[in-house]
């Protein structure tokens, strides 16, 4: 928001591009859960665009992003986050956008990066790498730290007044907060970053487990969505249970009934569970016993469980819920 407003203050027209990789952390994902229902539901990119009075183009890059995640030239961060390759990819996509929309008169690209703010992609050494490898070269301007970097074409051509750009650096966000106040921004999204699930250890662990379980690093959109939902347990290498944690998640998982084997306790209230992977009928009792553990019948002698598979006859079994000590810690993904 700050970088855009800095340019708007110079009378420059700006439009936003937001790339959706599938790994973006959005309030809506959390809003599936009951306890998050009161959280404000908004897409921060749309919200910011509206505050700034700019158009926003949201681009689905889910398919193209797979190569970034699976083959990052510059490696991963602390988890499965390929931040530097990701930044290069996104700036490159913006370069393509500028070329494709040349008739609309886009001249250069800005980002809100600040030197030293992020440990992987926003270092003084990596900023030129992003400009070079993305193909943006000298049309990539970082208004918030431009004075710490060599002059770019927009500055050299006089399209932008370099004197009115900034020299922010480091992890301290106080200068940005002061500028936000100066611009009258009282609310802003993600002030400490962290907008990507790939930086999250729990999520990254689930992703690695998914690949290991399948023996392949292929993934589809539904896979990465389901990693955000439910309690994941892998009692056998061949299958994983995704157990809803509340009614909101059960409702969300309902949409997957046709694609997956589902398990649900019907004699008591309990979560809907989907089975990801190959489960054989010999394992139904084990899976049902685990699922029953997470329902209101967990202390009952027996509960009735339905196992449903699209195109097959519904199976009902009676089972004693697994006691907590038998739900092994290593099953939890």
């Amino acid at each position, binding site marked *: 928001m700050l970088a855009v407003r800095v340019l708007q203050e110079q009378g420059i027209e700006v439009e936003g591009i*937001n790339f*959706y990789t599938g790994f*973006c952390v*959005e*309030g*809506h*994902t959390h*809003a*599936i859960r009951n306890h998050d229902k009161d959280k404000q*539901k*908004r*897409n921060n*990119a*749309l*919200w910011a*665009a*509206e505050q700034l009075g*700019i*158009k*926003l*183009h*949201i*681009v*689905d890059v889910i398919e193209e992003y797979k190569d970034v995640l699976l083959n990052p030239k510059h490696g991963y961060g602390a988890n499965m986050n390929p931040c530097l390759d990701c930044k290069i990819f996104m700036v490159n996509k913006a370069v393509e956008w500028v070329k494709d929309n040349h008739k609309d008169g886009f001249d250069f690209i800005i980002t809100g990066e600040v030197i030293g703010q992020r440990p992987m992609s926003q270092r003084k050494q990596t900023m030129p790498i992003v400009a070079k490898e993305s193909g943006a070269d000298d049309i990539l301007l970082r208004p918030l730290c431009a004075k710490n970097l060599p002059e770019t074409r927009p500055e050299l051509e006089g399209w932008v007044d370099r004197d009115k750009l900034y020299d922010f650096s480091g992890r301290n966000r106080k200068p940005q907060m002061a500028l936000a106040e100066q611009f009258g921004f009282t609310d802003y999204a993600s002030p400490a970053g962290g907008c990507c699930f790939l930086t999250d250890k729990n999520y990254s662990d689930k992703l690695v487990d998914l690949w290991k379980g399948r023996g392949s690093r292929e993934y589809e959109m539904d896979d990465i*969505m389901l990693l955000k939902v439910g309690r994941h347990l892998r009692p056998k290498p061949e299958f994983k249970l995704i157990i809803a944690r509340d009614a909101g998640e059960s*409702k*969300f998982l309902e*949409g*997957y009934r046709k694609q997956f084997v589902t398990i649900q306790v019907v004699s008591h209230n309990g979560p809907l569970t989907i089975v990801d992977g190959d489960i054989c009928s010999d394992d139904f009792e084990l899976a049902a016993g685990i699922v029953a553990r997470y329902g209101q019948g967990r202390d009952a002698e027996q509960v009735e469980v339905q196992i449903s598979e699209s195109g097959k006859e519904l199976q009902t079994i009676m089972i004693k819920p697994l006691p907590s000590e038998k739900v092994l810690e290593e099953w939890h993904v």
Partner: protein
Amino acid sequence: MSEYELDARRLLCPMPVIKTQNKVKELAVGDILSVICTDPGVLSDIPAWARINGHELVGSYENDTEITITIRVGS
């Protein structure tokens, strides 16, 4: 003026917005598009997207399982 329907069920935001955005590119000014969704986030996102891109929110309807948002394509 024509009326269209878009199925965005089971998609989490911003995918319903992206699908709406891409569908609207194929439509003419004045056309009506109803987007059927299951993510409650669309109640804020599709109207916000419509406002910043010059489209009109005609209405929204919600039942126990689905949300339908209707917009009129602007210029």
